[in-house]
């Protein structure tokens, strides 16, 4: 069948208009774009605690199929990723640290931010072991909160550490040496960074400000010096805790979601632990605690759409259901898992805000020179 030149011209014009319109539409709707053409590859750094989420095949599949995104996310400490030149010089397209304060820190390190938004929330908790928690309860440092979950008077614990009290003195028998809580390196990783802020605020009696820093920085430094080696990432510290057991890691700082994720990874393993392990992991919720927000910073405009993808309902629900991250407002998702229900505290009311960026940076300086 012959086509007239006019019809061919109109056809060409229509196809081109449809193409342009389609391109513009798809750019504005990344969730549809993923179904067409080559997926976009994005390179960036993410805190170790999100490594499991980012490696989850379902998450990767939703990102690729629905949003057309493939991530090359490398584990880096949240603080170092927004400050260290060796990392920033690798030109990451996105950064996914674990505290809102770090967005300001990134800005002050000269990172050009295209967009940033909190994706998840997770309270800072202490991880310990049942027999240690029982000792802390007996000595009046912690309280059971119904089931194998506890709240801990963090200020009281910190004061005991600063005074150089032994484990024995805080109710824990069978451990040599002085009591300690180990966090990640506050100059590199967020859980340590937030724990430094929380410690400083608790010791000063209020959210710490620049003018009151001088009164307590020595004590904060003592708490951190007692830790010895501090791993650079939260994921690694939690792995060390699980792998090392009560003798190696009696009490560490972590995110609430880490135990949830570990339990969900292998439910049978958890059942075996609950049935047989000589000591079992427990969560101690500090009273008060701080919430770690996980803001995604798109450095390159091309990573902006990653934010939309991550706050889509399907990925947020996956994040709670399989990895234990609470949503942007700190609330838990729909799913309830019987393995964990008795171990989590659903509503956390006593929350201290993290001091602002200039105070935190001043505190970090004092800790690194202490």
């Amino acid at each position, binding site marked *: 069948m012959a086509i007239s030149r006019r019809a061919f011209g109109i056809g060409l014009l229509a196809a081109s208009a449809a193409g342009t319109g389609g391109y513009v539409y798809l750019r504005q709707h990344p969730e549809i774009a993923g179904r067409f053409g080559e997926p976009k590859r994005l390179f960036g*750094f993410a805190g170790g605690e999100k*490594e499991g989420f980012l*490696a989850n095949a379902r998450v990767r599949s939703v990102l690729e199929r629905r949003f057309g995104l493939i991530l090359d996310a*490398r*584990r*880096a400490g949240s603080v*170092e990723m927004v400050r*260290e030149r*060796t*990392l920033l010089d*690798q030109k990451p397209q996105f950064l996914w640290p674990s505290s809102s304060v770090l967005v300001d820190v990134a800005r002050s390190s000269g990172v050009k931010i295209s967009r940033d938004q909190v994706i998840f929330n997770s309270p800072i908790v202490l991880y310990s072991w049942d027999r240690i928690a029982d000792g802390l309860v007996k000595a009046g440092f912690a309280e059971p909160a119904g089931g194998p979950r506890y709240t801990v008077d963090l200020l009281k614990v910190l004061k005991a550490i600063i005074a150089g009290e032994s484990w024995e003195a805080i109710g824990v028998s*069978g*451990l*040599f*040496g*002085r009591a*300690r809580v*180990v966090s990640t390196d506050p100059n590199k990783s967020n859980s340590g960074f937030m724990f430094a802020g929380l410690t400083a605020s608790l010791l000063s009696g209020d959210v710490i400000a620049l003018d009151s820093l001088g009164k307590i920085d020595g004590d904060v430094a003592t708490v951190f*010096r*007692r*830790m*010895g*080696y*501090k*791993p*650079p990432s939260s994921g*690694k510290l939690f*792995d*060390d805790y*699980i*792998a*090392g*057991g*009560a*003798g*190696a*890691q009696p009490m560490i700082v972590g995110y609430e979601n880490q135990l949830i994720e570990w339990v969900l990874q*292998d439910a049978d*393993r*958890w059942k*075996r*632990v609950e049935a*047989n*392990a*000589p*000591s079992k*992991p427990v969560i101690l919720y500090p009273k008060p605690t701080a919430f770690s927000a996980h803001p995604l910073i798109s450095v390159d405009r091309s990573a902006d759409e990653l934010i939309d993808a991550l706050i889509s309902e399907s990925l947020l629900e996956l994040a709670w259901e399989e990895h234990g991250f609470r949503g942007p407002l700190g609330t838990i998702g729909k799913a309830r898992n019987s393995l964990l229900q008795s171990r989590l505290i659903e509503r956390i009311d006593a929350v201290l805000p993290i001091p602002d960026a200039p105070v935190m940076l001043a505190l970090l300086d004092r800790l690194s020179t202490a």
Partner: protein
Amino acid sequence: MSLAVPRSAAKFVAGLLLALGLAACSAPGPQFTILSGSENDVLAPMVQEFCASRQATCTVRYQGSLDIALALKPGGDPDADAVWPAASIWIDMYDTARRVKSVKSIAQMPVILGVRRSEAQALGWIGAKVKTKDILGAVESGKLRFLMTSATQSNSGAAAYLAMLAAGIGKPDLIESGDLDKPEVLATVRGLLRGVQRSSGSSGWLADLYREGERTGAKYDAMWNYEAVIKETNDKLIANHQEPLYAIYPEDGVSVGDSPLGFVDRGRGKEVEAFFNDLQAFLLKNETQARIAATGRRVELGRAAPLKADPATNLDPGRPLTVVRPPEPAVIQKALALYQEALRRPSLTALCLDVSGSMQGNGESQLLDAMRFLFTPARTREVLVQWSREDQIIVLPFSDHVLWTATAGGDDAAQADLLGKTLKLRADGGTDFYTCAARALAAMKPFLDREQHLPAIVIMTDGKSQGAMSTFEMPWRSDGHRVPVFGVTFGDSADRSQLDNLATLTGGRVFDGTKSLTQAFRAVRGYN
């Protein structure tokens, strides 16, 4: 009904054919290299099993933890797709550009003291709670000597050293920077390290040396090594009807290596990374973890049951431990420098350097380069093999005779002097290293009799020696078997068998210097 069987059989056959077809079509896996600590050689068959299932070619290259760490420094090249050192602190300290990702601990390996059972009995340690200060007491009273790897070259040595240091400080929970300036602490630790009978750069080799000592009659008292390596050693000792080691877990704290396996991103693409992730998942799945636990390693909570306790050897991977907290990286660096420069037992090293005619050209220039490295403190310090003031160095260049002998201390001026002399050497003449080794032994004698130093003769050669081994063997035997001989080979015509015989006789080791003489000399430094 009668058709049902053939139909399901047909389905089965079709499925089988499809599966076979898919397997035949699936692409072979990648060429994959892992840089690993020697303690993992027992796990290498599991790695190879996985690689075979993917038709991948996997190479496991063994190096000390410090070497692995140095290769990860910005600008370094690990030349590998994965690293598997003994403890993750080495990755954290040196991989500042974060090239290593997906790091996961495969097993937990406490470093403990294995003591010959009769020796443990004599010390009253069977069934007793032993603290590090009891070990110190035994060393000080001359009742105990041990094998331990070099703290600056190997993780197990570093772990044992840091645990002793912490105990020496008197607060075993943590070493802080200021502690390392206290003279009484240094005196205590120096005392403990006097107990080092032999050292090495590799934990696996140290265990072989212990067993070899049973055969040769050297019969060592004890060794610091990984709990699992002590178990492996015991399995072999017991099979040979030899006395096993009794495990001492110091009550006040032990150091634990976490055996981390991490991916080194070299931009080789998604397939290589996916292969790594699958390999790691294979090693961490319950079935594999159960096999790893059966080797005496401790595995993550809930993965597999630990090996049962053995009352005869006191080995008990299920026993809860008090773990010495690793200090801050800056404190570790300071502690390691202190070990190398001041605290370790000083070394007495005789270097027999081949300057025969065949070394002319490339051989000569490589040898002189290696000497420039060995006697330039700034360069040896970078890789923590620097000499200390208390060390004694004897240089003996040889061809068919020893050209000259120069003895010097390890201070900077003495090293510069030795280097000056060495750089004037020119290659010429025949080869006789037996005579050189015998002369070296004679030159070492006055120092040996003081029993302060850890001795070694190092023979570097590119050829076959004239003369007979007895030239060295007779004086070595009459001296009381005190000095191990290490060999460094160079070039294609080196006759390794002669050096191997000397090394086997004396409890030494032969290093291949063909690729880099400097690297080979560096490695030897970890052995005394």
